């Protein structure tokens, strides 16, 4: 049996009294591609923040690479591309290479300069996303799709085994989206990287993933490696819920 990279057991979290995630239970193994879908405000980003240890669950446990989060020390093994990553100050003076190199800072450690090995990893990451040729360009001068690839390179530079991406295709044109999914497929199939992709784009996500979590405060988990059924997606369309027969 493959190594478990992520395991949530009965995880709940509320902002003051507003429940955001309720008893989420699911797990993913090495090489899995998990899609997280659900309506806005349904708790998708909260779920990611819990997995990253940025929020502490009210109850339940989260294990990353087999280790429970408060004790987990291998954070560089996780890569993260935040929502609105491209929402930075477009006048900021930072080159493509400088932004991608941030992905190595955690591995290098506080007060340490980046080593030759770190710089090689940054170059490799830029090569994988096809942005090495633009390494000295200012990030703010690039298109939205190119910026997105730089932020993915930043996450890849840390050589993560599990990569989490939060709504990365927002505000990116169709061609860039297509390239983006092709890149994820390459990372997943060729490099064997485990992926978590949060998206509101149910159609696209369900084409690529083999596991699906439908998050609307409650979390429904489906193995979709043999194809996605319409019923797997119900939680993403709350207005369609009425059409689904309920048996109480």
């Amino acid at each position, binding site marked *: 049996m493959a190594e478990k990279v992520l395991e949530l057991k009965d995880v709940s979290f509320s902002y003051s009294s507003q429940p955001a995630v309720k008893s989420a239970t699911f797990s993913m193994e090495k090489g899995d591609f998990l899609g997280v879908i659900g309506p806005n405000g349904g708790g998708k980003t909260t779920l990611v923040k819990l997995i*990253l240890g*940025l929020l502490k669950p009210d109850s339940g446990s989260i294990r990353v690479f087999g280790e429970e989060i408060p004790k987990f020390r291998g*954070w560089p093994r996780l890569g*993260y591309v*935040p929502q609105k*990553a491209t929402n*930075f*100050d477009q*006048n*900021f*003076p*930072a*080159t493509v290479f*400088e*932004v991608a*190199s*941030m*992905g190595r*800072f*955690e591995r*290098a450690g*506080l*007060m340490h*300069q*980046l080593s030759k090995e770190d710089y090689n990893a940054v170059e490799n990451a830029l090569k994988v996303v096809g942005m090495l040729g633009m390494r*000295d*360009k*200012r990030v703010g*001068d690039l298109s939205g799709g190119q910026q997105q690839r730089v932020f993915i390179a930043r996450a890849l530079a840390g050589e993560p085994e599990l990569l989490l991406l939060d709504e990365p295709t927002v505000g990116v044109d169709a061609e860039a989206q297509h390239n983006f999914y092709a890149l994820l497929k390459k990372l997943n199939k060729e490099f064997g990287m485990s992926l978590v992709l949060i998206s509101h784009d149910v159609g696209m996500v369900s084409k690529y993933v083999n596991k699906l979590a439908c998050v609307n405060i409650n979390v429904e988990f489906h193995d979709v490696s043999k194809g996605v059924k319409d019923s797997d997606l119900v939680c993403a369309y709350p207005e369609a819920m009425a059409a689904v027969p309920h048996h109480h």
Partner: protein
Amino acid sequence: MLEFLQYGFMQRAFIAGMLVALLCGVIGVFLVLRRMSLVGDGLAHISFGGIAAGLLFGVYPLFSALVFSVLAALGIQKLKQMKVYGDAAIAMFFSFGLAIGVVIVSVAHGFNADLFSYLFGSILAVSQADILVIAGVGIATIVVLLLFYKELFYITFDEESARAAGLPVENLNNLLVVLTAVAVVLSMRIVGILLVSSFIVIPASTALLFCRGFRQAIAFAAAIGVASVVAGLVLAYYLDLAAGGAVVMVLIAVFFAVLVYKQFRPK
């Protein structure tokens, strides 16, 4: 040519001026990009209270100013964490420091002239002791900045991601304002309390007009600051101008020259 370098006071002015211009240029890039340009000004006014207290109690004024300024820097951070708006927190400490200074002056008479030299700077009266303090503390501050360069770069670019990447964001923010407090106090002797923020804000803003990379912006901000100090001091010497004011005029002239060039250069 260069006869002015024969004078001890001019040598000291050059060493002290170039060092603080370098330091403030580097710090300025971080502060300006984080929309914290006014922190320098606020901390300088707080230092005024520290200077007055030092003169009153017979403590070396740069030392008492340093204590006031660092404590206020941490106080501003604390208020921000307690959900007071950042600019309001700065404004409060700003007035508080001035108030302390004014009250002390009204109680104790007789050192108005000394205080005046701190308000407007007196680069030509930089003493041997001042030089040792400015050089020692200034170099130490630059070393700390270089040690934490990459982390400060990350939180300046995107605090949220930096936090997700496991960086101690709160502590780094505290570090940045403390280093600013130190830089402000060191610069005060040269340009004076009222002009300190020019050393922090203008070279950085000039570099940001044309730099593509962060390292590049830091290098240019430092270089613009240092070159302007040299030019300003030479001007002040030959035209018999106030040194602090002359340096700031040069900084402003460079900024507008770059701005105009940027507008009219062929794309």
